[in-house]
């Protein structure tokens, strides 16, 4: 469903991505794991066509550069930092993004109910808590039922209870057969949601393993243990 082939990207002199290649199958949930600055967010932004890169990114066989709008129509994206129009009401935000996505929808409350925000449609976005904003972003991402979800450290700013609820919600969405590419710093999230974990460091993929085999002891270093038999180094 997602194919990233030999993608490189620079911020000035700094190389943010260095020949990254990755494939995510239809219905698969792949976690991007790595320390801050490893290149996870940059890779996600390249998939969305937000940054200029060399190499090739395809979603459902469509080139992300040549068919940016069509590719983004297939992707529901929840960023790490939510940037909504604070003065808008929650319901207005849903309607605005539904129009941008050309997503057929008839009931704002139903969309909000899907992510546990029922009854908040009349509130201004600035009145929502961080966790509620994340849920709103997820509701926006799910408009039009996109086959791919791309999530960038979406639980980083949530408290323990909010995080559990959010992960449970994502687990349900993944179970519905959606393809998921997400970055996270939390082992419990990765082991719960991911079928496969891709470890990045300094803009490169340095390891891959099945989600169930992900070794929590690598957590401290932010990179996979070289001794782990599950790790197979990417090219």
């Amino acid at each position, binding site marked *: 469903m997602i194919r990233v082939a030999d993608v490189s990207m620079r911020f000035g002199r700094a190389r943010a991505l260095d020949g990254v290649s990755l494939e995510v199958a239809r219905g698969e949930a792949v976690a991007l794991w790595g320390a801050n600055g490893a290149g996870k967010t940059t890779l996600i932004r390249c998939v969305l066509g937000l940054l200029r890169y060399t190499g090739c990114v395809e979603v459902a066989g469509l080139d992300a550069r040549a068919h940016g709008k069509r590719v983004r129509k297939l992707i529901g994206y929840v960023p790490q930092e939510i940037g909504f129009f604070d003065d808008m009401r929650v319901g207005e935000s849903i309607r605005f993004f539904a129009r*941008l996505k050309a997503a057929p929808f008839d009931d704002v409350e139903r969309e909000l109910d899907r992510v546990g925000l029922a009854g908040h449609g009349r509130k201004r976005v600035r009145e929502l808590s961080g966790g509620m904003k994340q849920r709103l972003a997820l509701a926006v991402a799910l408009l039009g039922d996109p086959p791919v979800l791309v999530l960038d450290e979406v639980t980083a700013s949530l408290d323990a209870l909010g995080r559990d609820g959010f992960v449970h919600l994502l687990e349900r969405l993944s179970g519905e057969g959606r393809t998921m590419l997400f970055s996270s710093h939390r082992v419990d999230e990765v082991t719960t949601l991911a079928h496969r974990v891709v470890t990045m460091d300094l803009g490169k993929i340095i390891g891959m393993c099945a989600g169930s085999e992900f070794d929590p002891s690598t957590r401290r270093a932010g990179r996979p243990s070289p001794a782990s038999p599950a790790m197979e180094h990417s090219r």
Partner: protein
Amino acid sequence: MSVAAPIIDRTAFIEFTARPPSALANIRTVTLRELRDAVCSRWFALYTLAFLGLGLAVSSVSAAAAGGVGLAGFGRTTAGLLNLVLLIVPLIALGAGAGAVASDRERGMLPYLLSQPIARWELLLGKYLGLLFAIVACVLLGLGGCAGILAWRGEATSPSGIVGLALLSVALAASMLSVGVLISVFARRASVAVGSSIFAWLVLVFGTDLGLMAGTIAFKLRIETLLLLAIANPLQVFKMWSLSTIDASLDVLGPVGLYAQDTIGDRLPWLFGAILLAWVVVPLAIAMIGFSRRSPV
């Protein structure tokens, strides 16, 4: 008898689900949002009230000075309003344009908007049109309010003169908004964009006039050079065009106005129109190219 399983054309399915909204639909969505945002904001109410209040003050003073009657009095009033438009409309348009992209970038809104199925040029054009409609509403409310109150007080008004001034004000606003959006696209921070737009306003409103006067004295500029330098500034073009519609002659501008009338004659409105159109299209086109190449992050 075997029943054939339905064949699902996967490519056709993806084609269907990946069909993004049309460019027109996206531009409309962003335009309406930007317009709503602008109308609900304080700057819109503030500028409209300021425009209306100053317009009424200028009109009253001009009408009183002209004895308050006759179309000559109206010409004076329009000239007063023209000077007000020359100061306020560029300030509103440059300021609004400067905030168009830079503030969204600073708030982290830009990458999120661009992660939706919308092309960058669609987003920028939608923002431009939304802000333009808001400024047009502000100008029309201001000028319309002035004209309405003057008519109610029984002072001279010329509907065609007011409409002409309003249309030219809209053209001026469109060109200044383009410049503001251009500044916004290339500014790294919202504060830099606003500062640059105020600097641009100072240069266009005051700097060019003073520069031309100084240049004429210091370099003994030839009259055709002076005309070329004057019409390079959209504010001067607006002023000359407005005066020619009020008075049908540019002799109030001195030798340069007379020279323009003698050499270009009936083609002056076309020249003025082309220059203002270029000030709308060229900065906006450069802004779109820059916006499509710059990282939104």
